């Protein structure tokens, strides 16, 4: 099924002229003959368009900080923001030995009109006192919502004073909803804070075990991280910390001693990955544990990085064992899914990551895109020097880090790193566009109107996105798969996750539900027979 510029123009025609010009820059048709194709991203959302983007608070507290389980996360603001980010992302967390797991709690200062007028600092101070008394957490974070910055509450000063008073880390995040153009700004703010105030606070000076790694940008949605952990451990890796799914202050504080950092979600965590390299000399490797082949490739790249024969052998053993186990099951589902097409519009990495898994089931991704990604997530990191900072991105300051005097240690020599970069994505990400086949669509910040029109145009067999847009295709009779929170299913990562995903997707196609859309009286008569004429 082909799509051409004319089709796209026809859809954009419904917009006012200026909006049309803007949106055209956010949509492209993959054409490998053109070399690197440019796609505008991380620019201001058009008002009044039903975007799926969220805000800086959502990216900071909701995405990056929220899953750190032994910290109590305080939302400083009116009740809504805290309420709406209460466990909605299905980050799973196991309770550690000390019992400190506050994932199921939503804690807010519930600002009222009088707090807006007279300021909310006192309330926040009192609240931190109470939280320390009630929960005794390992740390506290304070995330700001829109009014906080506007009325001039100095949450940084409050946090600092509370930290001194209680002798417990209290971190503040100026992630007011209006900052930046999407939740992406909030990821950056959270990355800076975690890097500055958590990583390196532990007292480990050396990796506690051979093959010590951190897993960055894995949020353990539906238990993804646990499945990844299973085979990493089996191969012989020691996971020091996960940022941030099922992560904890207690583990992240020692992240600086790892031999290697793995980056799963590039968008939300690449700042920390870069800073860990500069400050502690630990390189990062882009991995993708969604899909069988992507998982295998990631594991092989990791083994190549360490270059240890025993590790390589063990990696191959585990791969062979896992593949032998799941291949026959995947084959069954492939028979159902073969030849179908998908839309895959999610977040800032999954729009890319899931394409391989779809392909393994015989499903071609004909449209993919991100809600809040930057150009490097589409075009690859080589484009970063060309991205011009604008007023919005400049509002989120970069944290400048220097090599740490105490902990900096080059984990591999620069020569070896250069050598490895020729074969594995060490410190590199090639982006989504490279993954797509020619003629297919890439869309940034897709909205409801375009979703509807593009479904009509391309008629995909399955629509993979989130809860806000999933009901549009379903109302059109097309199965959907929530790739944000998995429709209460999962895990979808790794080997077992691939099987679970295959099962769920195949179920979407074969569920008898779809057979009843056309009532019998529409197609053929309910009763076969003829009416006899009178007298016969």
């Amino acid at each position, binding site marked *: 099924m082909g799509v051409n510029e004319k089709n796209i123009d026809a859809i954009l025609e419904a917009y006012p002229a200026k909006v049309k010009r803007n949106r055209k820059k956010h949509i492209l048709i993959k054409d490998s003959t053109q070399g690197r194709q440019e796609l505008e991203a991380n620019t201001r*959302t058009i008002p009044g368009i039903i975007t799926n983007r969220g*805000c800086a608070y959502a990216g900071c507290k909701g995405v990056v900080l929220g899953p750190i389980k032994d910290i109590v996360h305080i939302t400083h*603001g009116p*009740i809504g923001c805290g309420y709406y980010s209460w466990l909605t992302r299905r980050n799973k967390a196991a309770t550690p030995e000390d019992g400190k797991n506050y994932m199921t709690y939503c804690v807010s200062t519930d600002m009222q009109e009088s707090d*807006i007028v007279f300021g909310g600092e006192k309330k926040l101070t009192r609240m931190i006192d109470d939280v320390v008394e009630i929960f005794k957490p390992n740390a506290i974070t304070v995330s700001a*919502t829109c009014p906080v910055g506007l009325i001039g509450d100095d949450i940084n000063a409050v946090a600092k004073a509370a930290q001194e008073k209680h002798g417990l880390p209290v971190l503040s995040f100026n992630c007011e909803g209006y900052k930046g153009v999407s939740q992406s700004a909030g990821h950056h703010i959270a990355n800076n804070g975690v890097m500055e105030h958590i990583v390196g606070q532990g007292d480990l000076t050396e990796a506690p075990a051979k093959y010590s790694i951190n897993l960055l940008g894995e949020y353990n949605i539906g238990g993804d991280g646990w499945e990844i952990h299973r085979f990493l451990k089996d191969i012989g890796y020691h996971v020091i910390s996960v940022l941030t799914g099922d992560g904890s202050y207690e583990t992240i504080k020692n992240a600086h001693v790892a031999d290697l950092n793995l980056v799963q979600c590039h968008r939300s965590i690449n700042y920390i990955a870069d800073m860990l390299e500069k400050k502690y000399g630990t390189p990062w490797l882009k991995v993708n544990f969604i899909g069988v082949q992507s998982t295998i490739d990631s594991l092989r790249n990791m083994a190549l990085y360490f270059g240890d024969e025993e590790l390589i052998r063990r990696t191959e053993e585990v791969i062979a064992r896992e593949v032998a186990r799941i291949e026959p099951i995947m084959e069954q589902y492939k028979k159902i899914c073969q030849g179908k097409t998908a839309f895959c519009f999610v977040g800032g990495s999954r729009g890319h990551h899931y394409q391989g898994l779809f392909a393994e089931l015989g499903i071609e991704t004909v449209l993919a895109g991100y809600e809040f990604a930057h150009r490097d997530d589409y075009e690859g990191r080589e484009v970063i020097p060309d991205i011009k900072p604008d007023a919005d991105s400049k509002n989120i300051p970069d944290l400048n880090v220097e090599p740490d005097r105490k902990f900096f240690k080059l984990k591999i020599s620069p020569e070896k790193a250069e050598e490895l970069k020729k074969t594995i994505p060490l410190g590199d990400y090639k982006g989504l566009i490279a993954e797509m086949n020619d003629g297919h669509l890439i869309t940034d910040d897709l909205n409801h109107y375009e979703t509807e029109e593009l479904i009509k145009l391309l008629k995909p067999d399955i629509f993979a996105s989130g809860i806000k847009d999933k009901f549009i295709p379903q109302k059109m009779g097309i199965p959907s798969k929530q790739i944000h929170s998995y429709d209460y299913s999962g895990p979808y990562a790794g080997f077992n996750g691939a099987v679970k995903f295959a099962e769920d997707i195949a179920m979407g196609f074969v569920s008898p539900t779809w057979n009843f859309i056309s009532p019998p009286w529409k197609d053929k008569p309910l009763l076969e027979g003829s009416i006899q004429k009178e007298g016969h």
Partner: protein
Amino acid sequence: METLNCRSVIENPCTMCMPMGGILPFKGVAQSMVILHGSQGCATYMRRHIAEHFNEPIDVASSSLNEKGTVYGGEKNLKSGLDNLLKLYNPSLIGVLTTCLAETIGEDTDMITAQYLQERGLTDFPIVTVPTPGYGGSDFEGYWLAAKRIISALACKTKKHGKINVIIPNISPADIREIKRILLLMKTDFTLFPDFSDTLDSAFVRPYQKIPNGGTEKDDISAMPGAAATVQLSLTVTDTNSPGIYLEREFGIPLYNLPIPTGIGNTDLFINALKEITGAEIPPVLHQERGRLLDCMIDSHKYNFAGRSVIFGDPELVYAVTKTCIENGIFPVVVATGGKASNLKRLLQPHLVECPIETQILSETDFAQIRVKSMETGANIAIGHSDGRYLTEKEGIPLVRIGFPIHDRVGGQRLLSVGYTGTAIFLDRLTNTLLENKYKNYRRSMYEKHYQEKKAGERHGLQQFL
């Protein structure tokens, strides 16, 4: 953690914010759209939560203000947002709700929208503004203020037409449909508002509708001042936010302010009011439904009497559910609402005197408090929206889901709990939950009662063979 008395912590809230509630009445106006003036995160979060409850696409726009807007004002963003909304959706009415951001920086949405309509030559186009900062109240207040503002914006002095206005609180689409059925049975000519029974529970139809069909027609709302009476189903709404009081004061429409018709007493009040207003006879079918409800209540009373309920959520729903529980011997030990609900206690007092047990009434509370009180008072059934699941997870108190939002189960939009028939269905849900819990624990409690105690001394029954 349970010992703290003076709390500044809101731990696990039992309420949402004002614009969330403000969106819903607009979804009950035919072909209308809403735009939130503020950060886009507000619209995204609220759409997500409304969509998960109703399982429907929820299109709510945002003016997507960013840092620049907070400095120079959001006028430009709001105007271009309105342009895009009009062009793409072609709605017949737009609601402009403010958020924390817009209110804190002092945006004058009345002025901006009036100017906008002037500039575009659209002076006849209805834009309804509602000031709904998140810190201004809960979703309950947002709902009623939006409902009132829609009516006050559209209502015109109209010739008397004899219809009755029926004003609906935040109940399920299935409940609204049941109320319409009862109105038709009573041969009533009515304008029901806001009517989101179709828009937020739409049928699978082809082709896909950008704005789902249904909702109260704009013209019908305009004509509400010509009605013979208003029946408003909210005792807990404040006078300032009450659409019914507005219509009474401005246009002299007699107001029958009633509770949600859940429970036999509340349904009697509703039917009786309709009879009084229209003078119509109550049809045999309703008598029969009342009889069936009575039969249901009698069949269940021996099980229900073991129930001790904790009821929480929207104050209006809490009031109706509490009365229903009292009628059936499922005596409430904790009645809680996250918002202010200043008159809830006063309203419930006359009914609570009939209870043989003490009832704790909590307002502006959170689930941490509700949990503590539930344990102290020995509650064994929780009734409310899905956030009460923590009472089940932490304390094993089973939850009967009703109200908004319901996120961990499907079908929140199809829960029927009003009228005689709806009450019977609701009551069965309560009784069966009590029974299920009883069966689940039956063997254990019997063992503990008849065998465990004697363990230390003489051995009896099966145990002597062990």
